């Protein structure tokens, strides 16, 4: 166990296939990046446009959440196999994080 690694040598077709697949994936990553830039732009614009805070704040928070999901699932490959346990733990962290922020916004007072 442990130190033994499966030393599988790919044949040419397998090799090309995997190459192609990762190239495809990389194109997807660039698209993700474009979306993230776009979302950032919207967020900044929304603030500059000086709409009502009740409108802007939820929007930019939502945009942030989307960006984070993109980072996690695409850049950090959380959608791939083998991330089951780690996803569980990350979301547990997120829930606790959310509750923490929520309480600090409600029951730390002056």
């Amino acid at each position: 166990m442990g130190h033994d690694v499966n030393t599988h040598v790919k044949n040419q077709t397998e090799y090309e296939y995997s190459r192609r697949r990762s190239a495809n994936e990389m194109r997807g990553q660039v698209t993700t990046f474009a979306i993230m830039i776009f979302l950032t732009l919207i967020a900044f614009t929304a603030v500059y446009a000086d709409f009502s805070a009740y409108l802007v704040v939820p929007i930019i928070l939502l945009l942030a959440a989307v960006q984070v999901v993109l980072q996690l699932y695409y850049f950090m490959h959380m959608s791939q196999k083998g991330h089951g346990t780690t996803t569980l733990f990350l979301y547990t962290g997120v829930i606790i994080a959310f509750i923490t922020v929520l309480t600090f916004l409600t029951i730390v007072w002056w």
Partner: protein
Amino acid sequence: MSSVAQKKGIGSVIWDYLTTVDHKKIAILYLIAGGIFFVIGGIEAMLIRIQLAKPDNDFLSAGLYNEIITMHGTTMIFLASMPLLFAFMNAVVPLQIGARDVAFPFLNSLGFWMFFFGGIFLNLSWFMGGAPDAGWTSYASLSIASPGHGIDFYALGLQISGGGTLIAGINFLVTIINMRAPGMTYMRMPLFTWTTFVASALILFAFPPLTVGLFFMIFDRMFGGNFFDHTMGGNTVIWEHLFWIFGHPEVYILALPAFGIFSEIIPTFSRKRLFGYSAMVFATVLIGFLGFMVWAHHMFTTGMGPTANAIFSVATMAIAVPTGVKIFNWLLTMWGGSIKFTTPMLYALAFIPSFTAGGITGIMQASAPLDYQLHDSYFIVAHFHYVIIGGVVLGLLAGLHFYWPLMFNTMLDETLGKVTFWLFLIGFHLTFFIQHFLGLLGMPRRVFTYGADQGWDLFNLISSIGAIFMAVAVIVLVVNIIMTISRNKLVGRDPWGDGRTLEWAIPQPVPFYNFKQTPLVRGLDTYWIEKQEGNKEGMIYAEPIGDIHMPNNSIIPFIMSFGLFVGAFGALYNGEQAWAVPVLILGLIITFSAMATRSLKDDLGYHVHKEDLMKDKGGKH
């Protein structure tokens, strides 16, 4: 590279322990260090009880008393109970799941040494101008106002040892996730492994808020920050929240592994499989989860408003349900079994009603309006000593007797063990039962003295007498340990006769590489299954004998922790001593250069070769 013990000089034994990355030896380190801190914390408790034995006593001065309760609470929670639990986790969990090693042997050692140096640092405060004196909760306005360096020792010491704890937690999590033997599915893991798993998850999520809170305190006290200074816009309630977001899960970090130990002992000495295994697992996870939703029950009187109080009241009560599930499943495990009253089993038996008594007073406190009366009174002191001693300490003592043969291949004396048990149990109830009433009669906690004739004199005296019983019990235990070590009567595999899980199937003393061949797990209580089927070897194997990869020993964790220890003095005296900043930098340099050495020098470990394995004793092929 053979496990056969060669005769070694004392120096090389010490060096071996300073550099070890073997989880079994780290377990022994945790046991020794935790044990020492337990005695220190216990002596502090005795001082408390002496001071309170009679009204208007002047055995301890007011300031000193506050230092002693603070150090008693802090030491017991951070430096005694948790490390002792880690001792058993390290000793048992890898073996229980059929792993050759833990996931991060190097980090495991680093975790220990950080805890150790943090603990030493904290305790050095006694000799360097006074210990922390704002209670183990160190509430902000007082801890910011507290003169001297006590609180600085608290914040820095806990920061260092907390880092160690976090590392240990991650290590256990990954070990359990990745290193289980083939066939050891999650739903076949012994309960001690499960509780270790959940407790480690709690550590992972609960320690960061403490880290942040302690940093705030360090910034405020040493670097001019304003988090808790209301004149500068700060807010002390932030500390309360951060502390309890950590603090409440912390009590389950203590309780759950203890539950795990009992969940091993009770089936073993009832010769019956754990009743409702999956309910037990589910309850464990649920307790862990709910543990994060209830922290504000420590703050009912802070003035959070009725809505928050009501929500946290009800959420807190919910924890009784999964805990009750556990209590009843333990009872039903024994029901229809064949109960043998060994010392560990006696502790387990005493645990059930004692912990229930502590738990139900917790439920009373969970009722916010009632807690307005109970909070910060001796009722609270009674509650948490009932759950902590009745749950955690009984669990530790049970585990000590139960796993001693696994760790040392000898057996603690049963007669002395039972003497300890009865003295401790009687002393415990005598000390703390009466304190419920002290609280109801209006006695606040954390008072260094109390005036006569308020109706508290007799009860306090009774309580102090109870503490003497506990002290005698601990002394008998120490005698027992010394006798057992000097007698050194080896016992071999499965000494209790009724072992059920994999750790008892392994030959004794446990080889340094654990399993010669990785076992194949066919169900819950593997060893029991194999024994029932008449398998003399106790396990079947998932692989042929092959080379085993082992990590190298390393002194680097020790040096890294030592660097932090040195650096902490620099931070502590920042702005006060000319040498402070250089020392801070020196410490960080030590740590970082040790780290750099680690990352620049490849450390690939070594292999135990097949031929040596075949020769090794215990290999019956």
